[in-house]
């Protein structure tokens, strides 16, 4: 077994991992990053609907009333996301739990995060989409809202030179999407970081003396953690890392899974690991446009259609946007049936073919992201498979019903015909009752003011485990009502800045 000593071990390579890797390496720390998934770059991507290609990178955690999607590859989800990069609205940070306690730690709000949003936006070249680039579906969505007097805004994206091919979610073959392997990660390597892929961290153990050593300088700290990693391919050899500081950035599922597996060796770990998962309460509805509307286009133009409405954010706690979907994503996600079409079979055969022929140009899908409370729990099997469960409270059912009703009313009042959807589980059978699906899961190791309420403190440091940090979506304590990637990255920048300060490391500009 190979043993590697390092100042800092970063687990994962996505939005929560990339910033600490870069900032600590720039400041002169010896940084090693391990990523469970394969090394990918632009040339590896394909514009395809081959499920086997996608399943190499895209993983899922199924469950009761909620299913999660996440990526395992260099750069985490950044290779496959829709590159929407929005700041969390201020009211997000004011959310409270059932007891009226603020979900976010004291002092952490939009104002505190804004400087780090600035950094993240610069790094990813985030900008508001030009009006001339808004895909047809986004413009049709805007028209739907305009007809009812509702506002719409052009959204913001991490992209340069978008070709509008419509395959963002299979990886951008043009290198236009600002995935992390185009910016943060190569810059971290240039600064001296070492990245190993196909290497999964399977356990963390604190070493004797881990709780001692309050030395200010990183290099004076003792080696405090042993992290065992297993190669995913080839000989499946085990690598043992000995680190002064460990940063978990493997995502909401990955970080909770790793900490959960390591509980016996981290005796002071909070009971909240794997709990309190928030998921942006995504609700979707579909309809067919009336003849008075111009065509939308499901397949052409960037995967996210360019527009977002904050109209109902203050009143209902939701944002609304249009959705584009490739046939693979749509058909594998839901059974479709045109409301009012009494023919049987309703969701396959001739009625379904007629509906699918209208999918590209005439179908419009609306989605809402909402400030649903952090109520889901992740359980991990011995084999490492995650399963999520979400207790369905009456409040949650009411949220789902009211949100769905609001979205449907937007369609109906524009004379759209509704398309009824039954969402499918992993075995392709319909989910029973209310079911949420998301790639915006956060909070499985949430930040809190005290261990009684969370897993890490406001600095991202695990309660009871000095030098062990969580910097990814797992530490974000609430739903955001917008896509999560930019907030995760900004918060990771904030945590990294705190580490530089704590360990007397000078940021790159000052070094």
């Amino acid at each position, binding site marked *: 077994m190979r043993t590697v000593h390092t100042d800092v071990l970063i687990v994962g390579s996505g939005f929560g991992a990339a910033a600490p890797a870069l900032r600590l390496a720039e400041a002169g720390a010896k940084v090693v990053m391990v990523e469970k998934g394969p090394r990918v770059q632009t040339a590896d991507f394909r514009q395809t609907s081959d499920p086997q290609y996608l399943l190499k990178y895209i993983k899922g955690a199924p469950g009761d009333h909620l299913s999660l999607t996440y990526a395992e590859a260099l750069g985490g989800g950044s290779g496959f996301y829709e590159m929407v990069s929005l700041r969390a609205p201020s009211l997000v940070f004011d959310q409270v739990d059932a007891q009226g306690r603020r979900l976010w730690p004291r002092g952490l709000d939009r104002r505190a995060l804004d400087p780090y949003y600035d950094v993240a936006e610069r790094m990813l070249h985030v900008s508001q989409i030009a009006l001339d680039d808004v*895909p047809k579906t986004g413009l049709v969505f805007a028209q739907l809202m305009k007809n009812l007097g509702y506002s719409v805004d052009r959204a913001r994206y991490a992209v340069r030179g978008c070709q509008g091919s419509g395959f963002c979610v299979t990886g951008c073959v043009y290198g236009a999407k600002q995935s992390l392997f185009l910016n943060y990660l190569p810059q971290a390597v240039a600064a001296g970081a070492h990245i190993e892929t196909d290497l999964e961290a399977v356990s963390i153990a604190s070493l004797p003396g881990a709780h001692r050593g309050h030395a200010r300088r990183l290099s004076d700290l003792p080696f405090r953690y042993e992290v065992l990693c297993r190669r995913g391919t080839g000989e499946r050899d085990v690598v043992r890392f000995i680190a002064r500081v460990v940063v978990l950035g493997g995502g909401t599922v990955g970080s909770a899974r790793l900490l959960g597996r390591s509980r016996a060796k981290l005796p002071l770990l909070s009971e909240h690991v794997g709990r309190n998962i928030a998921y942006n309460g995504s609700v979707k509805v579909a309809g067919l446009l009336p003849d008075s509307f111009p065509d939308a286009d499901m397949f052409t133009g960037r995967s996210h259609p360019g527009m977002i409405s904050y109209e109902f954010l203050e009143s209902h706690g939701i944002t609304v946007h249009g959705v584009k979907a490739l046939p693979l994503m749509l058909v594998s996600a839901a059974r479709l049936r045109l409301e009012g079409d009494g023919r049987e079979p309703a969701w396959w055969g001739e009625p379904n073919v007629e509906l699918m022929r209208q999918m590209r140009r005439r179908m419009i899908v609306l989605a809402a992201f909402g400030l649903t409370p952090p109520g889901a729990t992740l359980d991990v099997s011995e084999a490492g498979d995650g399963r999520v469960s979400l207790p369905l409270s009456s409040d949650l059912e009411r949220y789902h019903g009211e949100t769905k009703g609001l979205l449907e009313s937007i369609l109906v009042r524009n004379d759209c015909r509704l398309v009824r959807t039954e969402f499918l589980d992993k075995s392709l059978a319909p989910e029973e009752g209310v079911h949420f699906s998301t790639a915006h899961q956060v909070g499985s190791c949430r930040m809190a003011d005290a261990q009684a309420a969370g897993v890490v403190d406001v600095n991202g440091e695990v309660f009871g485990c000095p030098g062990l940090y969580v910097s990814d979506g797992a530490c974000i304590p609430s739903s955001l009502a917008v896509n999560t990637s930019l907030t995760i990255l900004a918060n990771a920048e904030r945590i990294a800045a705190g580490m530089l300060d704590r360990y007397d490391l000078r940021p790159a500009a000052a070094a």
Partner: protein
Amino acid sequence: MNAIPRRHAVRQLGLIAAGLAVACTPMRVLVSAYPQVFDDDEGLVDRVLRAFVTAVVPGAPADDPNLVRAHTDPAYPFAQYAAFFAADLSRRAARRFDGRAFERLEPRERTAVIAEGLAADATTRKLYNGAVVLAQIAFYAGIYDPKKGCPAIGFEGGNHWHPRSDITHSNPERFLSHARTADGNYA
């Protein structure tokens, strides 16, 4: 308490297994309780599955080489049930339509057979449901041919460049409502 003699226990287990074999699809698959010909004759399975897919997706070209590939592709779990599934379609067709083969039925008759499977016991329903969705996914997404996609729904597969006029509408200002933000970020 009397111990149950081993022979008796084995017999009891056999009876339970036989009962399950009648009632439960996976057990029938496990005990290979379907005609051997469906394991031996790949051509038969192919014909039945083609008749199935063209009933699920009317208008799908029956001679498309990729039409039923997903149902027998070892990459997907359904492949292990393909022969059983074809046999089950045939059995239901014969029982319902005077011994006629599923692949020789009219489309509406095949539709009735499939609907029967979708309304059967929970396990059979799951199998038929998976087969239908798999047919839809493979056809509409064109999963085996990214250059072709699915012409029936205007999906071009991957890697088709489009001019801006295809991507957006002209005079986009006419679609816009009032905005709530200066730059897309809500304060």
